[in-house]
């Protein structure tokens, strides 16, 4: 556990965690995003955690309207957004109150005294002003009137008070850039681009940015504010950019469709946190992408299946409640054996749950959640960059096996950013879709060739036959069909056979063997994760191993079917611990598949695991 001793930042730390927090109208997500970019350009490794309310513009100054953006950056490998911030930027009393608990003892609070009015203190339910009552003694506090300083800085541009105050986030960002020794150039350029039709606003924002920077530079500040330098991380040589999970999924789908040599059809319906994928793809039409905002979640998947039927790569995307609505249509895609990719950006559930918070609680829904025996591959990405690879893999499985595939990501991955080594598309093996163009069955009594729409290839996949192809007219549908002709069949033996064929096809999907990502391939404890818990598990296992503990980290991408060696691998460990952000769903699936004594470690607070939580659990399991 973290000690209670003060841990102020050194001048040259290995890693720093900064949390920007303010009102949801204060532009904290934008501030965080730009700080992330400057951090990436400075060559640090990083991970971010945007944490914002579901309300678009909650009443100003309220506790539930606080929006925060946390970034962890360093000169070593970074996998999580960090357990506890070293620096908390609090733009108002509510932001301070909501975020204070997580701040490291001795950490630095930067607060805007201009917002600590009686009214705002009341809204944040502070009886007295925390900046003055001594309650912040265990932290360093740097409190000054950022609001007034911003208004002063943008005065020459003649903005009204309200518009002037909107530049506050840039002033604060300027100070942060000074504090961490960053170049302002790219940000100034970005502001000029963003406000190219409103040069006054661009100039005012740049002036605020520069003023914040200058404040750090020139103010004779004794005490806590000083410059901190974080060295660049040693990375593989190559070209880098930052990427969020939603961007990576979108780009991976575009790449996957190209590798399949297919146009892509994306059917979506607005839902948090999945909409970002629809937004990204809607701007990529030149890559053969058609996006369709349907009337509802059901229509979105049905249109995607209709497009796959007609010869495109159908894709749909949603989050838990929307995925539930799509269930029946998934069954039809399974029954008619058409390729389809379904992206599930999980969020807190059940029902509407926590739309903007993260959870991994749709695993049962993905693996088991359909009527009938309806086997469907499920794969999960573990980080924003990994989402690119997993999206390509989903397209590959869908096309090669003529099946819908569910790709699990979550709100944390979707919104979080990390540096990404830009891949070269030439390094991926294409998997071009094959369409049937001639009859594939034996000659009939009249000596004419016949068509068998359900005759399978060596992978168990049926042929893909595009409507419009001469002489291959046939009918498909959701009713059980004959194993070869595809004609309606209620024959008992045929249904048994078809059920077996559908299951066998999915069970036999070629899945790479499971690797151990940290530690030995057998031993006392395996920590087995999937999805976005990768970062904290990896860090926690790494720390435990440095303490000499016998623990390994296994992270599973292929949830269904699972890698063939996974059962034996798990049986090589005395204990198996499965941390996940649900009530133990993957634990159940592992037990179901391998009869191993997988033990759950669960969390459903809408927040990712901290490294400390996992470290404690590892130590507990090995005690």
């Amino acid at each position, binding site marked *: 556990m973290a000690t209670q001793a003060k841990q102020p930042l050194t001048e040259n730390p290995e890693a720093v965690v900064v949390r920007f927090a303010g009102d949801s109208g204060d532009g904290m997500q934008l501030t965080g995003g730009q700080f992330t970019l400057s951090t990436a350009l400075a060559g640090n490794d990083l991970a971010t955690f945007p944490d914002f309310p579901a309300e678009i513009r909650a009443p100003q100054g309220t506790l539930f309207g606080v929006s925060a953006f946390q970034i962890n950056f360093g000169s070593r490998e970074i996998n999580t957004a960090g357990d506890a911030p070293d620096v908390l930027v609090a733009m108002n009393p509510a932001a301070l109150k909501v975020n204070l608990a997580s701040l490291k003892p001795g950490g630095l609070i930067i607060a805007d005294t201009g917002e600590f009015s009686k009214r705002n203190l009341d809204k944040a339910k502070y009886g007295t002003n925390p900046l003055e009552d001594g309650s912040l003694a265990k932290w360093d506090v740097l409190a000054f009137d950022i609001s007034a300083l911003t208004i002063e800085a943008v005065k020459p541009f003649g903005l009204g008070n309200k518009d002037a105050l909107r530049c506050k986030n840039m002033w604060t960002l300027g100070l942060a850039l000074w504090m961490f020794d960053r170049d302002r150039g790219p940000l100034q350029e970005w502001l000029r681009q963003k406000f190219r039709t409103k040069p006054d606003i661009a100039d005012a924002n740049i002036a605020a940015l520069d003023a914040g920077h200058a404040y750090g530079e020139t103010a004779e500040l004794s005490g806590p504010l000083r410059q901190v330098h974080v060295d660049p991380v040693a990375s593989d040589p190559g*070209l880098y*950019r930052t990427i969020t999970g939603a961007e990576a999924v979108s780009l991976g789908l575009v790449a996957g469709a190209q590798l399949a040599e297919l146009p892509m059809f994306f059917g979506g319906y607005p839902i948090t946190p999945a909409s970002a994928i629809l937004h990204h793809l809607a701007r990529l039409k*030149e890559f053969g992408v*058609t996006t369709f905002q349907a009337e509802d979640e059901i229509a979105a998947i049905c249109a995607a299946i209709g497009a796959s039927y007609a010869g495109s790569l159908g894709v749909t995307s949603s989050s838990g409640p929307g995925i539930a609505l799509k269930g029946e*249509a998934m069954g039809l895609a399974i029954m008619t054996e058409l390729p389809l990719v379904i992206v599930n950006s999980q969020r807190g559930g059940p029902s509407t749950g926590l739309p903007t918070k993260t959870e991994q609680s749709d695993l049962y829904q993905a693996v088991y959640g359909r009527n009938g025996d309806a086997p469907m591959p499920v794969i999960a990405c573990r980080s924003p960059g990994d989402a690119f690879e997993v999206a390509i893999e989903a397209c590959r499985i869908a096309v090669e096996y003529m099946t819908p595939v569910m790709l699990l990501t979550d709100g944390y991955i979707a919104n979080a950013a990390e540096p990404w080594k830009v891949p070269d598309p030439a390094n991926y093996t294409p998997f071009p879709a094959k369409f049937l163009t001639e009859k594939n069955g034996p000659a009939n009594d009249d000596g004419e060739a016949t068509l068998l729409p359900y005759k399978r290839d060596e992978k168990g996949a049926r042929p893909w036959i595009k409507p419009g192809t001469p002489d291959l007219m046939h009918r498909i549908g959701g009713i059980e069909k004959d194993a070869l002709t595809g004609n309606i069949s209620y024959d008992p033996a045929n249904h048994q056979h078809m059920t077996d064929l559908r299951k066998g096809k999915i069970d036999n999907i070629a899945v790479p063997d499971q690797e151990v990502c940290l530690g030995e391939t057998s031993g006392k404890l395996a920590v087995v994760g999937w999805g976005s818990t990768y970062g904290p598990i990896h860090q926690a296992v790494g720390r435990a191993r440095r303490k000499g503990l016998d623990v390994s980290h296994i992270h599973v991408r292929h949830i269904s079917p699972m890698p063939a060696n996974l059962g034996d691998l798990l049986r090589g460990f005395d204990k198996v611990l499965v941390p996940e952000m649900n009530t133990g769903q993957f634990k159940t699936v592992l037990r179901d598949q391998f009869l191993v004594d997988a033990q759950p470690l669960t969390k459903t607070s809408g927040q990712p695991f901290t490294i400390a939580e996992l470290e404690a659990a590892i130590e507990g399991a090995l005690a």
Partner: protein
Amino acid sequence: MNAPVKIETTLKDWETDQEVRWCPGCGDYAILKAVQRTLPQLGANPANTCFISGIGCSSRFPYYMETYGFHTIHGRAPAFATGAKLANPDLDIWLVTGDGDGLSIGGNHLMHVLRRNVNMQIMLFNNEIYGLTKGQYSPTSREGTKSPSTPLGSYDHPARPAAFALGAGARFVGRGFDVSKNLPEVLKAAHAHQGAAFIEIFQNCIVYNKDVFDDFAAPKGAEDRQLWLENGKPMLFAKETKGLTLDRDALCLKVVDVVDGDWEAAGVIVHDVTNRSIAHMLVEMPFGPFPMALGVLYDDPRPTFETAAIEERARASEGKDTNLAKLLAKGQTWTVSGTAQDPV
């Protein structure tokens, strides 16, 4: 989109080897034959023709057509058809639905395919009952319909398919009934219409709702009860002894007697298929005091959804780089060489 090439076929070319499984005497048989008779007359190509349906008796239709066919899930056929049409705008799509499939579980999708104006023919077989689930009342059942789920008679107000379609924004609304000899003409007009063409086809369910349309569809006295609309022709029925005129004070239609064939003197209006206001009156016209309006009630095309999608994609792609490697490297990037890093 390519202009379709007309090819020669016969009715036989459109029949599958599958045994038709509707109840003997079902109106669906007549509709099937009407469609199979119409397609050769259109010069349609079976390989380019695709029947897409939902769930219900009517939705078994694709299995009996020697074309491409997709029997999907309950109520969602319009969404599948929209996706298929966007993926391949050259496909000639016929959507088959019923009163339960199209107006109950699938009402939402039917509304949106009509308002979007996706180019396809939508045949709604209206038998005012759930057949395949054994006779429950449907959204088009008349008030007081006794059924297993309404043993004392239904009390909800029925939906009117043609009025629904027009209200949803349909640019083509046609009507016919299963055994009508004029049905192929309505189908042909629907096919000629570029955009979503909605056809309500009254269909006799011989088992659960027998002869429910006899009051206008029965051959005896049909002339008095059926008004077959023709573009540019006066709205006459009952052997041209009656017609429809516009009551200009009440802003509604009115039946007038036509003496000695002088319909102009009687003020009978001439059917203009592009007149949306009159179309609204025709679909609202209560049967009984008025005849049943049949034929093409409204036909006024406007640009289709898939054309707009194609045009938008072309515009959005103009001058854009389609190199994937460049797309992946978009935005602010930096290069790592050894340990030194330089923004690029």
